[in-house]
C-alpha cells in the first residue's frame, strides 16, 4: 500500500494522536458542547506552556538531546517568583522582577549544567532527569527553611516554610494574559501571553540564523566536522544549555501568571515530560527540532489535554484524561527513544 510521503513522514504515533484529537472534537460537536470555552481554554493552555516547550529547542539543536533537566531552569524561575512575591511587587513590575531574577539565576545554572553534560556524553538524558529530580527535592528542603517572611506566603498557623502553592491573585495573576486581551465570538484570547510566546519564538528562530546559532547547530550535527572548522563543541553545548535553562526560567514565570498560582515543592519534578512530549508530537526527534515542531506539538498535545476531560466526563466517570495523558505523553517519548539513529 503506497502511503503518501507526507503521511509517512508524519509517522504513526503523530497520526494516531491527531486522530484522537479529531475524535474528541467530533464527539464534542456531536454532543453539542460549548465549543467556544473549549477553544478558549486550549488557546490559553498553548500560551501557558509554549515557552517551556520552546526551551527544549536550543538543547536539541545544540546536541544535548531532550532536556530532561528542564526543572533546573524552572527552579530558577520559581525562585524569581518567590522573591518577587516576598517583596510584594505588584502587577507587571512583579512579573518583570520574577523573570529578571529567574534569568539571572539561570545563566550560571545553565553553564554548570552544560559543563556537566559535556562530561557525561551519551547519557545526557538520564543525567538530566535525575539531576532535575535531585535539584527539585533539594529545593523542597529549601522552601521549608527559607528566610521568606511575607505572611501571604508562609503557612499561617504553626507550620514553617512556604506554602505548597502560592496564589498570584492580586499580584501578577494573568497580567500577561489580560494585557491586550480581546474576545472574539465568545472566545477569549490571552493576547499578552501569546504575543510574548510569538516574540520569543521569533527571537529563537532568528538566533539560529546568526553566526552563534549556526555554529551551535553545526557542532551538534557533526562534531568532527566542527572540529576541523575550528569550532569547539564544549563551548557550543554550554551555550545551548544556558539558552535552554534561561527559557525554562522565563517559561515557568509565564506559566505561573497564566495559571494563577506558583507551585512549589514536588510540582516541578515532572514538568519536563509534558513539554518533551509536546515537541516530539510536533515532529522533533532526539537530534533535530524545528520551530514548527514546537508550535504544532504544543497545539496538538495541549488541546488534547484541555478537551479530553470535559468531553469524556460526559460518558465516563473518573478522570480518564489523566490516564490518557500518561499514555500519550510517555508513549510518545518512548517511541522517540527507540528511533534514535534512524532519522
Amino acid at each position, binding site marked *: 500500500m503506497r502511503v503518501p510521503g507526507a503521511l509517512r513522514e508524519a509517522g504513526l504515533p503523530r497520526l494516531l494522536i491527531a486522530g484522537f484529537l479529531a475524535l474528541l472534537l467530533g464527539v464534542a460537536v456531536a454532543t453539542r458542547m460549548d465549543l467556544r470555552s473549549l477553544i478558549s481554554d486550549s488557546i490559553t493552555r498553548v500560551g501557558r506552556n509554549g515557552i517551556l516547550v520552546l526551551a527544549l529547542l536550543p538543547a536539541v539543536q545544540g546536541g544535548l538531546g531532550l532536556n530532561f533537566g528542564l526543572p533546573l531552569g524552572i527552579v530558577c524561575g520559581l525562585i524569581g517568583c518567590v522573591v518577587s512575591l516576598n517583596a510584594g511587587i505588584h502587577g507587571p513590575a512583579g512579573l518583570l522582577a520574577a523573570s529578571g531574577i529567574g534569568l539571572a539565576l539561570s545563566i550560571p545554572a545553565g553553564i554548570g549544567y552544560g559543563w556537566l553534560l559535556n562530561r557525561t556524553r551519551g547519557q545526557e538524558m538520564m543525567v538530566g532527569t535525575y539531576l532535575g529530580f535531585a535539584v527539585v527535592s533539594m529545593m523542597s528542603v529549601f522552601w521549608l527553611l527559607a528566610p521568606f517572611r511575607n505572611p501571604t506566603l508562609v503557612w499561617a498557623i504553626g507550620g514553617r516554610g512556604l506554602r505548597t502553592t502560592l496564589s498570584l491573585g492580586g499580584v501578577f495573576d494573568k497580567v500577561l494574559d489580560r494585557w491586550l486581551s480581546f474576545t472574539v465570538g465568545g472566545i477569549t484570547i490571552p493576547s499578552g501571553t501569546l504575543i510574548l510566546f510569538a516574540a520569543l519564538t521569533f527571537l529563537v528562530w*532568528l*538566533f539560529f*540564523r*546568526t*553566526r*552563534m546559532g*549556526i*555554529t551551535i547547530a*553545526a557542532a551538534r*550535527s*557533526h562534531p*568532527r*566536522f566542527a*572540529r*576541523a*572548522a*575550528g*569550532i569547539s563543541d564544549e563551548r557550543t553545548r554550554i551555550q545551548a544549555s544556558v539558552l535552554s535553562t534561561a527559557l525554562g526560567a522565563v517559561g515557568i514565570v509565564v506559566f505561573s501568571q497564566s495559571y494563577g498560582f506558583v507551585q512549589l515543592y514536588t510540582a516541578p519534578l515532572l514538568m519536563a515530560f509534558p513539554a518533551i512530549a509536546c515537541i516530539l508530537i510536533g515532529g522533533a526527534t532526539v537530534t*533535530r527540532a524545528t520551530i514548527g515542531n514546537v508550535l504544532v506539538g504544543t497545539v496538538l498535545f495541549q488541546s488534547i489535554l484541555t478537551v479530553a476531560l470535559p468531553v469524556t466526563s460526559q460518558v465516563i466517570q473518573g478522570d480518564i484524561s489523566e490516564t490518557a495523558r500518561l499514555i500519550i505523553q510517555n508513549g510518545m517519548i518512548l517511541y522517540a527513544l527507540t528511533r534514535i539513529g534512524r*532519522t
Partner: protein
Amino acid sequence: MLKGVSLAVRAGEIHALVGENGAGKSTLMNILFGMPVIQETGGYGGEVRLEGTPVRFQSPAEAMEAGLGMVHQEFMLLPGFRIAENIKLNREPARANLLSRVAGRGLRTIDVARMRGDSRRALDQVGLGIDEWLPVAGLPVGHMQFIEIAREVDKERLKLLIFDEPTAVLTETDAERLLHVMRGLAAKGHAILFITHRLDEVLAVADRITVLRDGEVVGTPDPRATTAARIAELMVGRPAAATAHRRPFAAGAEPVLTIEGLRVDMPGERVRDVTLRVASGEILGIGGLAGHGKLGIANGIMGLYPAAGRVSFEGKPLPLQDSRGALGRRLAFVSEDRRGVGLLPEESIELNIALSALEAQGRFLHPFPVPALRLLDHGAMRAHAQEMIRSLDIRCTGPSQQTRRLSGGNQQKVCVARAMTLEPKLLFVSEPTRGIDVGAKQRVLDSLAALNRERGVTLVVTSSELAELRALCDRVAIVYQGRVVAALPPDAPDAAFGLAMAGEPAAA
C-alpha cells in the same frame, strides 16, 4: 566488491594475502566468516570449499564451528575477565547440575579447573608463560595478541587460522615472536592465511602470496623469487598507463611551506618523522601504501589529530593542533573522510559550501556590532553557491538540495567548493577521487589543476592512486613507515616508485 577471486590455502602452509585498503581483503573475510553484512548487501557468487566440501556460512558461529579461526586487528578480548576466561569465552567446559537438568544446558556450572588446564596448554603452545588466571586488563599489547592466538589454537577443530594485520601494533621483538609462532602452527598442520601490509614479513614467512587490487587477483608471485618492490608495484597499480605530468615548473627560492620532523598521532596512519619543502605554486603529491602515514600529514598540520614538530608557512611558524589558526592563515583542507569530516549531509549545498568561510573568516554575514550575533546573509550565500555549482559543474537540483542526495563525485566537488570558498593560499587535498566513478574522476582532477593554474593556489595532494599523482603533480613524495623516503619526478621509472613504496629509496 570482488571480481573472480580464487584462492587456495593448503594445510601446513602460510599463505599471505596482500593488498591496499579497499582492495577486497575485508570483503573476502566477511564472506568466509558468514558475516551478516554480506547477506544484507546481496550475497555472493562462487564457491568456498573447506577440505573439499563446499560450504556457505550464515554466521561467524557457524564458521568457527567448522574450523575457521581469526586473530583480529583490534583485540577481541574482555579486559575485565581473566586470561583463561577469555580463551574459553562461550566455550567453557561445564558440568551438569540440578538446575541445568531442569532448565537447560546453559545453566551448567563452569568447570574452572579444566578451563585453567586447557588455557595453560594453549598458552604454552604460543610460548606465553604468564599465569592464566591473571586479568587481561593492564597486560602489554604484545601479550594480548598472543592470548588471541592462544584462544584460536585452543579450538580443537581449528583447521584454518586467519591473521588480520597481526603485527600492526606490535614492537619488533613481539612481531618476530609472532612470526615464529606462526611458523610453529603451520608446522603442526594448521593452514594459515596471513593478511598484512608488511612486505618484509611476507617474504620472511610466506609459502605463497596472493596480491589483490580493486577486487581482483593481480598476481601470485613466488616468495622465494620476488622482491618487496615487485609486490608493491602489483599492489599499487600499473603506473605506466597514465601519461606523466609534463609542465615546466621552476621552484622559487623560498619554499612556501616547510615541514620539519613532523610527528602525527593519527590512528592507522602514524607519521613518525616527515621533512618536506613545498614551493609556492607547486602541486606536490604524497603517495605510499595505506597505513604508512601519508594521510596523517595533512590531518596533523590542519589540527585534526595531535601533532608535533616544526612547520612554517610563508616564512612564519605555524602552530600545530590549531584548526582555526590554520584556516586563518589561509590553509585549507579537503579531507579524505568525506562523510566524517567533509560534509554536513543533512544540510543544503549552499550551507556546506559557505560554512568553513563563515566560521573562520566571518563571510556571508550581515554587519552588526556584536560579531557572534551577525545574521546569515542568505542572498550572498546563495549567489556564491550558484557560482561554485556552475564553475565546478556540480550536478544537483539547486543550491538548497541536501548534500546527502548527491552522488559521491558531486559531494566531493562540494567539499572542494567549500575549501575554495576560503580562498586559500595552500590547499591540502586527500584522496580526491576516492569512491568517485571514472567519468567524474578526471573532472575533479581538472578542477584542482585549474585552481592551481588560474588562482596560483599551492596544492598538496595525498592519494593512494599513484597514477593520478603522476598525472597531476610536479613532484611525488613517497611515505614509508611514517617517513618520506623519496621525492620523485612524475616521469621517474616505475621501478623507482615501486622500490620507494617498499621502503627502499632508489640509489641516487
